[in-house]
């Protein structure tokens, strides 16, 4: 029979008792999909050793696990990243391929308008194109918390739903709160 009501944190935090109560109190109803360890490793590589410029994450085909879709290093142009998001696809249960949402982390770098140098902001983007199907949109929206919690050190988070939302300038404005040159 199905194991209902078994909260993921019961399994994950069996080692530490204090942790259980803490996570459970904080947990939200939609914190569900598990995050593959490679996501966390890659994120740390981006954060600490600047190995990547960006990471795009997706849900595995059975929607149970968040895995890496694509990574890119700083030699790549921003447009490559944007194209990758816009061309992302997902397979529906009946096997049809349509537009797909994604999660992404991008290490934004911008110049301050005041001339005080450059700043870096690790930005989390929840990409959910308006023309994607209801089903994938729903699944991605409700699973986002799991990934966000697993990645520590995100400076800004934004939600993007169409091509304009992920223009470099649009994001720069949001991320820098208007202080960029």
């Amino acid at each position, binding site marked *: 029979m199905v194991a209902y009501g078994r909260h993921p944190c019961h399994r994950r935090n069996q080692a530490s008792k204090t942790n259980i109560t803490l996570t459970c109190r904080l947990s939200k109803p939609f914190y569900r999909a598990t995050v593959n360890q490679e996501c966390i490793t890659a994120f740390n590589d981006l954060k600490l050793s600047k190995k990547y410029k960006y990471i795009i994450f997706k849900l595995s085909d059975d929607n149970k696990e968040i895995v890496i879709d694509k990574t890119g290093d700083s030699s790549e142009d921003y447009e490559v990243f944007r194209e990758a998001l816009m061309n992302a696809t997902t397979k529906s249960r009946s096997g049809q391929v349509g537009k797909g949402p994604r999660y992404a982390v991008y290490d934004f770098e911008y110049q301050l308008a005041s001339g005080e140098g450059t700043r870096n902001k690790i930005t989390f983007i929840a990409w959910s194109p308006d023309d994607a199907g209801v089903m994938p*949109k729903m699944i991605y929206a409700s699973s986002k918390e799991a990934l966000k919690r697993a990645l520590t050190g995100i400076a800004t988070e934004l939600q993007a739903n169409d091509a304009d939302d992920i223009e470099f300038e649009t994001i720069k404005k949001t991320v820098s709160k208007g202080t960029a040159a």
Partner: protein
Amino acid sequence: MAQQPLPSSVQPTTDMYGGDEVSALVLDPGYSTTRAGYAGEDRPKQVVPSFYGKINYDNGTRDIFGDEVIYPRANFERPNYMNRDSVVEDWDAATRLWEHVLIKRLQPARATPAIRNGLNDRGKNDENGDVDMGEGIEEQEEGEKPLAESPLLVTEAPWNTTKNREKAIEIAMESWGAPAFWLNKTPVLAAFAAGKSTALVVDVGCANASVVAVHDGMVLKRSIQRSPVAGSWLSGQIRSMWDSSDPKVEVVPTFMVENKKPVEAGQPAEARLKKFDFVVPESFRAFEEERLLTEFKESVVEVWRGPGKFQGPNEDFVKSQVGRVFEMPDGYNQMWREQRFKVAEGMWDETAAYPPLGGGEEGRVQKGQTIPALIKASLEGVDADLRANLVGNIVVTGASTLLNGFNDRLHMELTAMYPGLRIKIHAAGLSSERRFGAWIGGSILASLGTFHQMWISKKEYEENGAGIVEKRCK
């Protein structure tokens, strides 16, 4: 939902159930209709009016659910099991109607009819408690409850009361024997179905218009704003408008008309009305009138798209334009020009609303009740840093938002209110996605294998009692 057979190598484990094979049910009760269906489908299989049918006999009553066999009778009433707050009021009736859609219509037929009125289990405080759907009640075997294999997800208004929430889980667990249960607030489901976990949800339904901010999948309690300026209020405006127009337009529902002759526009109707040798109950007539008003809303009423308010020069402009003709069931027909905009204008501008019929204060639009006012109040209730993000992620849902021009006007009003901010409105193009937004969200959520870890299980309910619903379903 297609039941795909599992390949033999992938057997479900007891640890976690990842497949979609669980036949969960989703129930979305509203003031106008109650929606129910199987999780994973893209629309509800059952859509029945929440105004159910009730026949009063000398020795009891009988319920009629759905739209079949509805004709006027002396003792036939159409009460609603919900109140104007879109919260269940009559739990006896609610249970019977829900059993009708969830068990009778959505569960496979059984040799022993699994109709067991949940209310018989606890104190017979109602004289109608024993009467079921007019069929013989056979005692069923203990331990074989009707929903023993179907987890149930029920939607609720964000202002639902603790008592009501506990009652819902009690019925699902004890009367129906559901293995798992979940309650979900409608704005969260509507936001998720639009692919957003942070959004300002504008939901204009039948009894309530509400604006609720959702942040990271949680309803922000201080942002909840609502008013009765919704579909059923609009019906009242149309009645006022018909009543005050010259000549006065009589509201004659279709069932009263025996035959009619075509007449010229604006001429009195030439129709023979049916004679009933009994008094048609008021609630029955009101429900049938509502059908006519709905048709008028769908085909004639339009929201002034802006710019600016409708009153003033815009009204004069519309007067010079061609209107729309509407024919009443009794044959009376007229062209509606400025009036068709004016009836919906009270949603945006309280000074433009028609006074309610009867002249009382009840039903009059107050200053803070218009849709722009609700949005403003809702945004003022949340952290200032969040506002820009919310205005950029507005999700519009509810059947009354399907009024022509609604989204254009909403955009116009918001641009005027928040000139510096980027405003983006997300409204599903398919009318069924707008009407059943919350149901569809619930359907997807309940069909996800991973979501099943979140449900409140029967065991948890037995250990903690009904109070668990307050702790878990935030």
